[in-house]
């Protein structure tokens, strides 16, 4: 039971990360290698914002902190698009991917320079909801992680299905040229995609930071997110949820049954297996392989 909750909570975090990668990939065929860094820097920003608003993280100050980091992350995503990615439209997707690697290096350096490589934890919902007789427990943040993840994916589904922007978004993902000819503002769509992706990354980072500790080594979770996205298929949001849960389950079970050292290697072993067996992922489209 406790294991199941842990898997669900970690899987939700990975699914959120994968969702961000998938959103950017679908919109612009760019694989974002900076996603883990974006998540962790977002979490550091959340931590600092919480410190500024009173460090207690209850009631009003929590709401203000959430509002600040949500706005800051979405804005940061739009800025990345406007300042960098926009200039790379029409260049090979691999060039844009390399630029995101550059962004990743800068963000990693920001953790060193701004937060002086401190290891911090976000004190949020550490109280247990249920304590088992064996000593294991389920905390509020575990529950919150799963709920936030479900809410986020539900909101995404509604957004893509029913809003005008969401429909334009799907159109752009399918065929940017046709969408542009139908008067869809591609730049706006891509900026929104980056905003949403960085927002979801921050969400994942904050939830990750509340359940464990943030350090300069944490951005490695970006690789788990990328693996989750690849398992499900880079162009499938449904796949992101499934991939996230699968990667989390595999990691946890290896750590429990075999060895913790091996569990660190699990995400990229899965990645290799997926690349050998079904490189387009479980829910992805096969033609995607030739589009990047």
């Amino acid at each position, binding site marked *: 039971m406790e294991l199941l909750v842990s898997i669900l909570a970690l899987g939700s975090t990975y699914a959120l990360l994968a969702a961000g990668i998938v959103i950017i990939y679908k919109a612009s065929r760019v*694989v974002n290698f900076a996603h883990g860094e974006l998540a962790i820097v977002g979490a550091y920003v959340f931590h600092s914002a919480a410190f500024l608003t009173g460090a207690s993280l209850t009631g009003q100050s929590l709401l203000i902190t959430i509002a600040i980091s949500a706005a800051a992350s979405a804005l940061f995503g739009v800025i990345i698009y406007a300042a*960098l990615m926009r*200039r*790379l439209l029409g*260049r*090979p*997707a*691999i*060039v844009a*991917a*390399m*630029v995101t*690697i*550059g*962004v*990743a*290096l*800068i963000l*990693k*350096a*920001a*953790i*060193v*320079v701004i937060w*002086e*490589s401190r290891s911090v934890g976000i004190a949020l919902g550490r109280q247990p909801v249920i304590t088992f007789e064996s000593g294991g427990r389920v905390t509020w943040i575990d529950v919150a992680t799963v709920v936030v993840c479900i809410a986020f994916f539900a909101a995404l589904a509604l957004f893509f299905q029913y809003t005008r922007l969401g429909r334009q978004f799907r159109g752009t993902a399918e065929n940017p040229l046709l969408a542009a000819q139908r008067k869809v503002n591609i730049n706006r769509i891509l900026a929104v995609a980056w905003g949403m992706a960085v927002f979801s990354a921050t969400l994942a980072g904050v939830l990750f930071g509340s359940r464990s500790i943030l350090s300069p080594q944490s951005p490695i979770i970006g*690789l788990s997110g*990328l693996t989750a996205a*690849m398992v499900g298929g880079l162009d499938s949001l449904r796949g992101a949820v499934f991939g996230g849960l699968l990667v989390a389950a595999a990691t946890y079970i290896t750590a429990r049954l075999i060895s913790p*050292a091996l569990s*660190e*290697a699990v995400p*990229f*072993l899965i*990645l*290799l297996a997926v*690349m*050998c067996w079904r*490189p387009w992922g479980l829910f992805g489209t096969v033609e995607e*392989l030739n589009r*990047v």
Partner: protein
Amino acid sequence: MLSNSPYLRTSYAETNRVFPEPYQRVLVGIIVISLICLPFVGGNYLLHLMNLALLAVIGAVGINLLTGFCGQVSLGHASFLAIGAFTTAILAQRFQMPFFVAIPASCCTGALVGFVVGLPALRFRGIYLAITTLAMHYAIIYVLTAYQSNVGPSATAGITVPAPAIAGFTLEGERAWFYVLLVAATTVVVFGINLSRTYIGRAWVAIRDRDIAAEASGINVTQYKLLAFMISAVLAALAGSLAAYFTSVVTVEEYTLELAIIYLAMIIVGGMGSIAGSILGAFFMTLLPFGIERIFEMLPWRLGTTAFGIQQAAIGIVIIGFLLFEPDGLIEMYRRVATYFERWPFRYRELQSIGGR
């Protein structure tokens, strides 16, 4: 016979020249002579930097043959270096193998690993290939970490490599190393330039530009892609192996993903698909952190860990800056200036030739 017009070529010998202009031969001569004289002028610190840069040149030529010429982006180059370094370390430390056995053995292991890492390239291109090589990198590093902590002499300190000795002469000190590395790097550069001018290099360029068209014109894409991975891995393993002897200690922690990114940055900065570009890029990326450090030393206050962070950020900024504003790298800047003077008073240059300078 040299024609007076830069546009008119009257013989095959002229088109096949590596350095078509006389001033280029003078320039290269000056560079070579000044490099040979450098140890008599420069101090140990400068020589140490030059040695690091020369090691980087070997690796950078390797990754440029793969990524710049054949168009296969590899994020796994650090693992090739690590394979070379570890093979050398294991052979030299555990089996007391001499210098001239360990280095070819490392190159062979490199070729084998390059072959395996190259296999996915037959199926993927672009980002999918980059992700696969990324996963390969972590898998290889995981194996090496397991070796270092379980089998190696010490889990944290890494493996010490004895100084190489040939016939009673021990290779020690920056100056001796400088000449060895200069010869090695020059050999690799000449090898790279010649390879890029032969049918192998042209086949790679064809695959990079359009693999289907290359296949249609009779190039065995499978074979040439694997060959590119293997040659690239051999050169990286050679660099790793020499680096193992040079630093005399091998730890798996050195070979991070960041190192692979730095190697990729070298060819982005220097110029994709240009051997001279790899040399420029290797020197630029090796000297960049030391240059920044030198600037910080001039500041009146001490920065501590911040300085390290800024060095990291500088790599990212350089990658982004070059990709956005000068995608063809430093070599393209040189070419613009050179073309201006070579062709003056005309403004146009000849049709782009493959490889060469």
